[in-house]
């Protein structure tokens, strides 16, 4: 009552103290109406506080007790740094180890983790929350990621699909696809026309789970979509169904463009050089490929998920060729030409279309998860500096032995992008890789060259992945570099990048600290 008067102001609402307790009315001194209003408010506050009684509430259920060990205190500072994203390179390893030992975060850190862990990091933190963390997560909608029950039932994914936020709906459909593919597809089909292009693109990707011939009709229809992105995505799914019209159509087109050269059309031709080669006893000419992509764009190709306009710097025909190859199972080429992957790549050598074909084959190996082709391609592409960057998407498809062999080779030649190559090798590293890295790291430390990015990447990977025992003999060299620079020695480049070396040393010490508490 008095609050309402105070809100409106005495200029707008006349002062009336009649409803105040009589004790307060009695002791109010005469004053202006404004001051009287405030005096009454002050006295009422005093009166209410002095006579305050407790409220009544219903207590919610407490958190269950949890027998899991808590993360040791000595790691809390490190944990804080991980949460701030300072150790993103090693945090996945550590999180996995903590999860393996069933460690939980101490309660004092739970609220910070729940509110600050980034979306990408949440799956790493979630298993560390423990019973207490999941109990806490139920208190705020934004913390729902912490609750995350690993296996959802079809019923609740159907509900989330109906009224979730866009990202949630995609996740729900994904989950639904793995439990009941047909129901999920018809749910998608029923809203397909009303979704925005961006959302259609996210949603169509979910069909990859449980993809089958039943999906062909829906995907065929999606090839007519207005959005280029959706058409391409539909095509990438359809070609994975070998019986689909699209798969057949594309293979046929590619066979018209690429053929094994008949013997007389060997790369040197039947002319002078060819005869010379024959006379010198070069043996039968190595098989060669005849490549001739179409020179005119056919409008119907848009329906095959192909794009007409090449990106800047790439020829249109080369671009079309690359796209078609990317949509055909690489194994087809063996049937078509009768050559093994390595031989086929050999035959490609020297062709004008070499780069387009290689890039198309890399994409195809990834799309069709073809390990044999991935290995052949990775070996071939590793031979030259210019093509080495194309290997990146193939690492997950390579066998572990192949990865190690390639990594060792890359280290020998000082290849760029060493860190992603080494990150692809499963831990713990086999002895051969460990000793190669150790040897190369020693060399890089003995003659530090801050302009050699490959050497710096190697040192970073060594600090991150080499077992601590293998790092121990290198530490004096490492420290020596930092100390020399701190004392004002070393060239300008080294001084400029010394923070990298400091960072390596800090990482190694943090690893020692972590391993001491939680042995691997």
């Amino acid at each position, binding site marked *: 009552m008095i609050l309402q008067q105070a809100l409106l*102001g005495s200029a707008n609402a006349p002062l009336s103290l009649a409803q105040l307790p009589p004790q307060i009315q009695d002791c109010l001194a005469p*004053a202006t109406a404004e001051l009287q209003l405030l005096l009454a408010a002050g006295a009422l506050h*005093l009166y209410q506080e002095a006579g305050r009684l407790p409220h009544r509430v219903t207590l919610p259920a407490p958190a269950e007790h949890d027998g899991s060990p808590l993360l040791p205190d000595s790691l809390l500072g490190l944990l804080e740094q991980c949460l701030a994203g300072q150790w993103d390179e090693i945090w996945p390893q550590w999180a996995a180890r903590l999860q393996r030992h069933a460690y939980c975060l101490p309660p004092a850190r739970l609220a910070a983790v729940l509110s600050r862990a980034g979306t990408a990091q949440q799956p790493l933190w979630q298993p560390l929350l423990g019973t207490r963390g999941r109990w806490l997560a139920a208190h705020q909608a934004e913390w729902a990621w912490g609750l995350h029950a690993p296996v959802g039932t079809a019923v609740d994914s159907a509900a989330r699909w109906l009224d979730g936020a866009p990202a949630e709906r995609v996740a729900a459909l994904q989950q639904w696809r793995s439990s009941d593919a047909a129901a999920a597809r018809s749910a998608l089909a029923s809203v397909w026309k009303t979704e925005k292009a961006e959302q259609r693109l996210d949603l169509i990707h979910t069909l990859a789970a449980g993809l089958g011939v039943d999906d062909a009709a829906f995907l065929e229809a999606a090839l007519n979509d207005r959005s280029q992105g959706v058409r391409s995505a539909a095509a990438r799914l359809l070609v994975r169904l070998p019986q689909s019209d699209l798969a057949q159509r594309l293979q046929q087109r590619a066979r018209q463009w690429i053929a094994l050269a008949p013997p007389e059309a060997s790369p040197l031709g039947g002319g002078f050089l060819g005869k010379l080669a024959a006379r010198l006893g070069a043996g039968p000419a190595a098989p060669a490929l005849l490549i001739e992509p179409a020179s005119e764009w056919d409008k119907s190709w848009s329906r095959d998920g192909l794009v007409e306009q090449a990106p800047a710097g790439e020829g249109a025909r080369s671009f079309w060729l690359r796209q078609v190859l990317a949509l055909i199972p690489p194994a087809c080429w063996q049937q078509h030409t009768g050559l093994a992957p390595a031989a086929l790549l050999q035959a490609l050598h020297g062709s004008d279309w070499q780069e387009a074909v290689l890039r198309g084959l890399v994409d195809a190996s990834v799309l069709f998860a073809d390990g044999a082709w991935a290995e052949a391609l990775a070996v071939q592409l590793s031979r030259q500096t210019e093509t080495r960057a194309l290997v990146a998407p193939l690492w997950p498809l390579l066998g572990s032995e192949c990865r190690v062999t390639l990594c060792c080779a890359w280290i020998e030649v000082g290849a760029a992008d060493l860190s992603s190559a080494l990150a692809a090798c499963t831990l713990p590293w086999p002895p051969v890789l460990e000793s190669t890295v150790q040897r190369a790291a020693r060399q890089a430390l003995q003659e530090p060259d801050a302009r050699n990015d490959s050497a710096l990447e190697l040192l970073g990977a060594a600090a991150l992945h080499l077992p601590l025992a293998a790092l121990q003999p290198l530490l004096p060299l490492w420290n020596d570099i930092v100390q020399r620079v701190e004392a004002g020695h070393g060239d300008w480049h080294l001084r400029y990048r010394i923070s990298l070396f400091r960072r390596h040393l800090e990482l190694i010490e943090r690893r020692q600290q972590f391993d001491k508490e939680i042995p691997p």
Partner: protein
Amino acid sequence: MPLSEEQVMALAPDAQVAAAGRKLALARSWGLLAKSARAVWGECQGSGAKPYQVRADLGDYAAKCSCPSHKFPCKHTIGMLVLLAQQPALVKDDVEPEWVSAWLDKRADSAQRKQARVDEAPAEVDAEAQRKRQEKRGARMEDGLAALELWLGDLARRGLAQIAGEGPDFWDKQAARLVDAQLPGLAARLRALAEDVGSDEHWPARVLAGLGQLALLLQAAKNRATLPAGLVTELDLQLGVALREDEVLAHGDRVQDCWQVLGQQIDEVDHLRVRRSWLAGRSSGQLALLLHVAVNQQAFALPLLPGMAFNATLAFWPGTLRQRALIEGEIQSVALPEVFWHGCSIDDHLQQQAAALAVQPWLRRLPLVLAAVIPLFDGRSWWLAEADGSALPVHPRPAAALWNWLALAGGRPHAVAGEWEAGAFRPLALYVDGRYQLLGEGA
């Protein structure tokens, strides 16, 4: 119980120093690291050629570093203490080098000299000059109170709803006028109200109550001549006409005890950091408030760690309610306690509050330790409850502290210390399994 990393973080003057200190908590940053019974010291390699020499007194965690940083304690000090907290085994016992023992001796020396100065007979006072000063001050205060009355009247006429739209200038100017009129106590109340405006749905009730208290103080000042002597002293304390520290030491009540730092709250006012430390005496049960002020990122003169305990004599400002105090002489730290020594129920607290209001009607804050309460959030408001469901409201801010409390308690009762202010509780710290856990903003 040894020092915890959290407590070290509470010493850091700002978040930057805290983060930088954590980064320095690496063995490789320290060329030398050792401790004795009374101190810990180390040499940290900085950007210069010579390493920085860092030393900290283990008694009161005062520290000194040879680095040029203008923040105290600096990141090197924090780094060294974090390392001591994280990996105590790394810090070996050793004989104090000269640069450590010299510093410790100098500290002890200056403490003695300070004590000696206090013990000396007060310098002769120029009675005439003092009377003139007081007259001048009295006139200024009267003008300030009259201006406040006008301002409050204007505010009540326009109404709180309209005032909500005013910018910070509206409040700041009046607060500054109160400071000029030598009424800092009222200025501080006004600033706190300004911050509360619009903070949640219940702010009008709290701000109105605060304005009402200001009006009551104003009225009391007008009627000063009719008030009993004790209440006049209390009124002056509230207006901000506090006795000087040497006067408190000369005239205030003294209580000797072992004091536990229940919790701390640091407010930033302009370029000052004002730290409230709430203490409770082990055998007396007496509660006390210590105020310390630091400029910018300078260190507080007395680095008190929340959760620590020490033997000391406190001298209280005279008034009707013993609350604000200062430390007489030196403090002697004792082992960190594993519980709050005293705790009360919700009913006890409400009775104590009523008794306190009876002698000090303008009461702003009351420290309290509740022996066994559960925090809970009902989707709109925060509460603390006892096992039987009786409950008190909790301030909605800072929210991070409340979520932390919820996480630490897990729906079960624990002892918690905090402040009662404007009809709600603000938690500062609690004990979980014998361990002191900070809740405030920094935690």
